[in-house]
């Protein structure tokens, strides 16, 4: 099998964005790739993220799906995000598969034992989308067997809602996402879930700045899958995954994530390897403000 490696469009966006803004923050990022916790982007900061998913495909060609996220903290209670998605199916083609615009809103002022976040997303994608950012309805591995040339002709407009519930107890974070999505072309509501648990390897910070200190590593596990649709709700005839996750928050401002995912039933891809790199740009909002209003 010949693998064609191409620089994805989204990676180019990432590099361009990082080159434009020299002020980088040093965030403490969670290791989750699918699950959301209740922590929003800091106000005025832009986080530029690039993620890849290599997936195995039974009865077809393996694929490499990738996406760029531009995540902006509009306020301390509102984060807004733009996704650009693409994929390469080996021995077929590399294509742009769509975009997503999401908003996460924190309705409560204070921290509680369980913290809710409301999530609303608009997706405009085509049928060749393979990023597997969530599993909904009766999503199964064989959906990905349709060749890119045919799948890309199917246009999907979708609204997605999530209730994110998240708690942090003694250094552990526990997050539960309940997903409901609606294809706007007269399809039934579909449902899904994502669960995550993670903890930094050390809870105290070191007195010296260091790259390999244990507190810079956050490890955990996430599990996600579909819950059917409004006519056939449940765990059957859909796919489910479990995935160990690890994040490395470097003092230089970069965060690296790695997550091998394993399918839990015959409807799931047997193996997905996900990785991601992100960097936070502090003061992005102020820079835009100066640019458009001409004052500091």
């Amino acid at each position, binding site marked *: 099998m010949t693998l064609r490696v191409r620089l994805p469009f989204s990676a180019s966006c990432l590099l361009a964005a990082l080159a434009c803004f020299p002020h980088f*923050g*040093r*965030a*403490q990022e*969670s290791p989750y790739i699918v699950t959301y*916790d*209740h*922590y*929003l982007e*800091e*106000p*005025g*900061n832009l986080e530029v993220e690039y993620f890849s998913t290599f997936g195995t495909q039974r009865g077809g060609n393996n694929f490499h799906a990738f996406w760029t996220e*531009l995540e*902006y*903290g*509009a*306020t*301390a*209670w*509102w984060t*807004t995000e*733009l996704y650009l998605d693409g994929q390469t199916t080996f021995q077929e083609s590399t294509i*742009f598969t769509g*975009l997503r*615009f999401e908003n996460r809103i*924190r309705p409560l*002022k*204070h*921290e509680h034992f369980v913290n809710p976040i409301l999530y609303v997303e608009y997706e*405009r994608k085509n049928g060749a989308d393979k990023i597997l950012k969530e599993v909904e309805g009766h999503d199964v591995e064989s959906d990905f067997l349709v060749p890119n040339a045919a799948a890309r002709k199917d*246009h999907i407009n979708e609204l997605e809602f999530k209730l994110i519930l998240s708690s*942090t107890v*003694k*250094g552990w*974070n526990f997050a539960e996402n309940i997903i409901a999505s609606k294809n706007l072309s007269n399809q039934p509501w579909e449902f899904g879930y994502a669960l995550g648990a993670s903890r*930094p390897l050390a*809870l*105290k*910070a*070191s*007195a*010296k*700045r260091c790259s390999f200190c244990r*507190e810079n590593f956050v490890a955990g596990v996430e599990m996600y899958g579909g819950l059917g649709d409004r006519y056939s709700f449940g765990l059957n005839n859909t796919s489910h995954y479990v995935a160990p996750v690890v994040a490395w928050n470097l*003092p230089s401002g970069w965060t690296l994530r790695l997550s091998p995912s394993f399918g839990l039933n015959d409807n799931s891809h047997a193996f997905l390897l996900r990785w991601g790199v992100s960097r936070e740009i*502090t*003061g992005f*909002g*102020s820079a*835009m*403000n100066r640019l*458009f209003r001409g004052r500091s």
Partner: protein
Amino acid sequence: MKECIVALSVTLALLGASFAFGQHEKPAAPNSKANALVYAELAKAPDKARAKRNPMENDPDAVAAGQNLFERHCAECHGNAGYGTEKAPSLRAEDVQSAAPGAIFWILTNGVVRRGMPVWSKLPEPQRWQLVSFIKSLGVVPKTPEKKPD
């Protein structure tokens, strides 16, 4: 292709609106009423939270570790030396320095979300106490904004 460009334009316009909205919500200008409102949040800490002792107060590394954390997470808004900036008030003000460590810890945990201060409970408890140790080590000076963040 045309549809993609239209969709991208709409999305970018919405993003632009969010930038504008976000910047419109000015958190705390130096020495303003807004600062007083942020400081007033310290008084809202429940008695139980205020009474908590800093478990790191006898840790000789706590201030240095707290400084590292401060530079990572707080300096962008409060300034490298904690004098405050246009975005957030001074941490060397009397209101902060005379506050109980437990009240500062409570603010770090809960944020002042409606006034721009994010929730920092994503930092484990020991790290939040290390931050409290560093903030308390700053001492009181008049509330003046940093002219040039170093």
